[in-house]
């Protein structure tokens, strides 16, 4: 039974928005009560790249700051240890050690995946994924790509208009060729 009496799992109104599996904990329990990443909001289409190896020790060194010695070979996703922060806040440290952060690292191991896709696959709200990804990036466990929209021109940069137009041209040609 849910520890939260007002958890929506207990509602039976059958509305159209109620089809998503209810998490067993409040989403923001996962993030230590924080609702915003430590920096700007990550775009939902920003791509996350895992820099550590939670499941496949053969592919390279594991957590930054740790040696990928013989011990790494026995490391599995279940025993993945949280990356150490240079100057961690308590909440960030707690969220890095959580199963949700491990899940994000598993999902992004070996492929680029957007914040939105991580959210869908991990059954976590976008806002929670943003916070956790920001923490992981800060800890050096993931890298985030696509923070600047490639299709928009920056008024401050006169060359960006041409660059944006070139991206749109590639998109146009790509769609046309589908």
């Amino acid at each position, binding site marked *: 039974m849910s520890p939260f009496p*007002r958890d*929506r799992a207990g*509602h039976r*109104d059958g509305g159209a*928005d*109620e*089809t*998503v599996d209810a998490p067993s904990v409040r989403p*923001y329990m996962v993030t230590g009560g924080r609702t915003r*990443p*430590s*920096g*700007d*909001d990550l775009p*939902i*289409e*920003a*791509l996350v790249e*895992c*820099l550590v190896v939670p499941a496949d020790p053969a592919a*390279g*060194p594991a957590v*930054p*700051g740790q040696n990928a010695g013989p011990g790494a070979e026995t490391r599995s996703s279940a025993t993945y240890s949280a990356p150490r922060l*240079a100057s961690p806040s308590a909440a960030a440290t707690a969220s890095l050690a959580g199963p949700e952060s491990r899940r994000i690292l598993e999902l992004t*191991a*070996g*492929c*680029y995946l*957007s914040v*939105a*896709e991580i959210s*869908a*696959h991990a059954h976590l*709200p*976008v*806002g929670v994924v943003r916070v956790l990804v920001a923490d992981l*990036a*800060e*800890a*050096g466990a993931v*890298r*985030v*790509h*696509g*923070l600047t*929209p490639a*299709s928009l*021109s920056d008024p401050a940069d006169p060359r960006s*208009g041409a660059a*944006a137009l070139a991206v*749109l041209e*590639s*998109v*146009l*040609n*790509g*769609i*046309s060729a*589908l």
Partner: protein
Amino acid sequence: MAFPRSDVAAPAAAGPAVPHQGGQAPPTVVKIVVAGGFAVGKTTFIGSISDIEPLSTEAAMTEHSVGVDDAGMVSDRKTSTTVAMDFGRITLPGNLWLYLFGTPGQDRFLFMWDDLVRGAIGAVVLVDTDRLDQCFPAVDYFESRGIPFVVAVNCFEGVARHALDDVRSALAVPADVPLIYTDARSRAATKQALVTVVQTAMRRLAAGATG
């Protein structure tokens, strides 16, 4: 360590990167937003062309709403903690990933759109001519923010029941907003709608650059 944007691409503490997809550079990501009223066919539209099965994600919020939703059903929910948002992805040549994000279908989630729309190439507003008023918020939204958009009249059962000129005058959209027929189930029609969005965005960008 702070989390400034410029730091993210190359964190100093990152250590050696794991080779990704044979060391391939990260894809360039672009997105197009698909808007329109409740049950107008946004997910069908996205699914007709997406490389991946359309995914649904949730945005958490706590909300008290009692009233009538857009489907005409009386709802009496005390809390609605999730809003479903469907999306798909198309891989294009040149290491380009195009995401299609469907807007949450009800007006009361309009506040979420800023997040979806930020950085988008443009938008498709799907229209069901039987429920024309449902697309008004979307049209207003994109118009007021100067976001390139295309109005695509979804022909259910392949039947166009209204002339585009009539739809244009009913929606009061300016002549520079393209108005097209589409069929959300058809890959070819969806493709055409997306091409029109990108062309509109390019025209806008070119006009901005010269004037």
